[in-house]
C-alpha cells in the first residue's frame, strides 16, 4: 500500500466529512421555522423573541455559527440542545443506551429465527413444511411492523398483562428494562426474520446445486451432511449482505417502533428535535450518523486493499 494512495484516501475522507457538514448545516438553516418562536409560542413579544435568539446564539451570522459548530465537533463538543438545554452528547448517550440494545436484540432474534428456519425449509424442499414456511414468511414480509407491534401490545400487554405496553424504566430498573424491550424487539425482528428466512432458503438451494456439493455427495455424504458441512457456510455470504442492509432498515424501523412503544431512543430524539427545530440536536446527530458511515466505508476500502492487491493502485 503506497503512502500516496493512503494520503489520497484520507484526503477524500476529510473532504467528504467537510462537505457533509456544510450540507447538513445549510439544509437545517434553510428549514422554515424559528426555534425561539417555538419555545415562546404565540403570546411572545418581539423583544422577548430577540432576547431568546440572542441567548441561543441565533443572532450571529451563519458563517460564524457554522465555524463554531464544526470546530466544536472536531473537539468532540456536539453543542447544547436548544430545547432541553443540556449537552447533545449527553442526550445521544442516553438514547443510544436504548436504541443500540434494542437493535442488537432485534438482530439476534432475526438470526435466531431465520437461519435455522431457512435451512430447515431448504432441506425439505417442495415438502408441505417448506410450502408452509414460505407462506408464513410471505405474510411476515407483507405485514407492516407498526401494525404487528400493536397486535403484540393487544395480546401481551392488554389481554394477558405479561409485558409492559410501552415506555422504558431505565437500565437502573434492572430486569423490567429488559422486559420493556422484548415486545419492541419482536416487532422489529419478525418482519426482518421473514425476509432473511427466504434469502437463507434460496441461497442454500443455490449452493446445494453447486459442483462441490455434488462432489461431496459423490464421496458418500448424505444430503443433510453435505448441507451442514459444505453448503451452509457458503450460503451465508448473501445472507450477510442482506443482514448488513437490514441493519440500516432497522435504524429507520426504530423511529416507528420507538414511537409506538414510547421508547426514549435515538429515532424519537431526531423526530422530536426536527419538530421543535432543535437545530443543534438534529445536525449533530445527523452528522454523527453520516460520519460513522463515511468512516466505516473508509475502513472497508482499506480492508479490500489489504485483501486484494489489485485494488491498491486505483483511487
Amino acid at each position, binding site marked *: 500500500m503506497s503512502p500516496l494512495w493512503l494520503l489520497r484516501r484520507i484526503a477524500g475522507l476529510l473532504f467528504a466529512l467537510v462537505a457533509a457538514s456544510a450540507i447538513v448545516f445549510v439544509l437545517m438553516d434553510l*428549514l*422554515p*421555522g*424559528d426555534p425561539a*418562536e*417555538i*419555545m*415562546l*409560542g*404565540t*403570546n*411572545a*413579544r418581539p*423583544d*422577548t423573541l430577540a*432576547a*431568546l435568539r*440572542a*441567548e441561543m446564539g441565533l443572532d450571529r451570522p451563519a458563517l460564524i455559527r457554522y465555524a463554531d459548530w464544526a470546530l466544536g465537533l472536531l473537539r468532540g463538543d456536539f453543542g447544547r440542545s436548544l*430545547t*432541553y*438545554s*443540556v449537552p447533545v452528547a449527553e*442526550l445521544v448517550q*442516553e*438514547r443510544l443506551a436504548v436504541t443500540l440494545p434494542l437493535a442488537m*436484540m432485534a438482530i*439476534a*432474534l432475526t438470526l435466531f429465527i431465520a437461519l435455522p428456519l431457512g435451512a430447515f425449509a431448504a432441506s425439505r424442499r417442495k415438502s408441505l413444511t417448506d410450502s408452509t414456511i414460505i407462506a408464513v414468511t410471505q405474510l411476515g414480509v407483507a405485514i407492516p411492523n407498526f401494525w404487528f407491534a*400493536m397486535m403484540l*401490545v*393487544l395480546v401481551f*400487554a*392488554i389481554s394477558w*398483562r*405479561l*409485558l*409492559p*405496553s*410501552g*415506555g*422504558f424504566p*431505565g437500565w437502573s430498573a434492572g*430486569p*423490567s428494562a*429488559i*422486559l420493556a424491550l*422484548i415486545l419492541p424487539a419482536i416487532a422489529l425482528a419478525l418482519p426482518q426474520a421473514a425476509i432473511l428466512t427466504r434469502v437463507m432458503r434460496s441461497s442454500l438451494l443455490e449452493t446445494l446445486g453447486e459442483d462441490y456439493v455434488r462432489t461431496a455427495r459423490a464421496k458418500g455424504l448424505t444430503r443433510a451432511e453435505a448441507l451442514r458441512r459444505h453448503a451452509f457456510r457458503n450460503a451465508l455470504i448473501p445472507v450477510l449482505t442482506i443482514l448488513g442492509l437490514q441493519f440500516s432498515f432497522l435504524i429507520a424501523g426504530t423511529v416507528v417502533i420507538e*414511537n*409506538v*412503544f*414510547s*421508547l*426514549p431512543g435515538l429515532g*424519537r*430524539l431526531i423526530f*422530536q428535535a426536527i*419538530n*421543535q*427545530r432543535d437545530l443543534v440536536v438534529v445536525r449533530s446527530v445527523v452528522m454523527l450518523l453520516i460520519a460513522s458511515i463515511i468512516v466505516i466505508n473508509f475502513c472497508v476500502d482499506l480492508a479490500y486493499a489489504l485483501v486484494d492487491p489489485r485494488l491498491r493502485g486505483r483511487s
Partner: protein
Amino acid sequence: MIRLLTKACLALVLVTASVAMAPLSAAPRTDLNVGMRLEPPHLDPTAGAAAAIGEIVYANLFEGLTRMAADGAIKPGLAESWTVSPDGKVYTFTLRKGVTFHDGTPFDAAVAKFALDRARASDSVNPQKGLFEPIEAVEVIDPATLKVTLKRPTGAFLFNLAWPAAVMVAPQSAADNKTKPIGTGPFKLDRWAKGSQVDLVRHPNYWGAKPALNKISFKIIGDPTAAYAAMMAGDVDAYPIFPANENIPQFQADKRFTVKIGNTEGKTIVAINNARTPFDDIRVRRALAHGIDRKAVIDGATMGLGKPIGSHYAPQDAGYVDLTGQYPYDPEKAKALLKEAGVSNLKVKLILPPPDYARRSGEIIAAQLKKIGVEAELVPVEWAQWLSDVFRGKNYDLTIISHVEPMDLDIYARDDYYFNYANADYKALYAELAATSDPEKRKALIEKAQRKLTDDSVNVFMFLLPKTGVWNAKLEGLWENAPLPVNDFTAVRWRD
C-alpha cells in the same frame, strides 16, 4: 441470547408473581402515573410557552402569588391576602411566612420582587411578558409585604399573576430551573428521563397541607394507540387530556375508568386574513360563517365532544354571551352574500397545523365550502412553519387553530396580530375593558366585545376544545375543567 432469554423468563416469572401478590396490600396507593401527550422542552414555565411545562410543574412544583382554582376562581397562593388602592393602581400583598424553596432558600418579599422584575426585564425570555407590562414598580415594604404599582388600572392583574409564567422563582436557582427546577410547591423534581418520563416526589418541608400522593410520574406517551394500550394495561392511571377522542366511548363503557368531558380554554377558529382580498369585505367573511356547518365539524372532528362557540370567548368564563345563532348554517345565504360581494370562483388556501382537530376540521370545512362555490386547497404544515409563515409572516388566506390562552380578547386589539383586524372601535372598547376592575362593568364590556367580534365576523368561531379526562375510577380530586393548561394534583388521592 440464550442467557438473555433465560433472564427475561426469570424476570417474567418475578413480575407475574408480584402482580399476583399486589391485591394483598391494604393501604391506598400513594403514587400516580399520569399520561402526557407531549414532552416539555424544559421545566421552567417562566421561559417557555409549551403547555406541557405548566401541566407538570404548576401548583405541584412551582407556586405563584395567586393561584387558579379548579373552577377558574383566583385564590391566595404565596400571597395570603392583598389590598387594592381605590384607583386600582397599587396592590399591597401580604406574603405567607415560613415558606421555603426546595433547596432551603426562604421565600420573602425580596424574592417575589426578584421574580416579577426578572419577568419584565429587557432581557426577559418570559413567553407571557405582556402579563407584566402594566407593572410600573415593585417595592419591598418588609419581608412579608410587597407593593406593586401599576402604570394604569388593570382589571385582570390578579388573574395574570396566577398564570404558570408568573410563578415565584429564587435568584440563586432561577437560571437552572430549566433542568433543575426549584420551587416552593408540595412536590419537587426527582428525575427526568428525557424522552420518557418526569418524576416528582413529595417535598417534606412544604409550608401548606400535605398532599395525599408521595410520587407523581408523568409518562410521555403521545401516540393515541400507545396511550390507549397504556390505560388499558394499567401502566398509566390518568390522562388529564386523552389524545384520541374516538377511544372515549370505550372508556365510558368500562367501569374501571372515570371519564370527564370538561372545558378547556381552547377556542378553535377558522382564522381569516382580514387584510387580504376578498376577505377585507365583511360580506365574504359572513358568507364563510354561514357556509360552515359548525355541528358537522364538531361531530366529525371532535366526535361530538366540542362545545360550539359564537365568538372568541369560552362559555364557562364570566361575561359569556351565546352568539352561536348569529350565523346559522345556510349555504344559499352564503352564496347570495358572495354574489353580492361580486366574488365568484374563489380559490383559497386553508393552512392546517398538525393537531388532529385542525386536520380533521379542515377536510370537513373544505367539503362544506365547496358547496358555496369556494375551492379550498388544504395545506398541511408543521408547527414551526405555521408559526413563522402564518403567525409571524401573516402569509395566509385561512387557517384552523385553537387559541388556548384564557379570556384573550386582547389579541383582537393588537396592531400587528395575524388576523389583520385593526379595528379602531374594537381597540377603544378593549382599552376600556382593560382599565375596568368592577366585575359587573367588566362583564358588560366583555359581552360588548364578543358581539363586536361576531358582528364583524372577524373569524369563523367554531368550538371549544374538549378536555377529555380519563382516569382510574378509584382516583379522586382531578380537575374536570382546565381554566389554564395545568394539572393541580395537590388534592388527588386514591380511594380505599
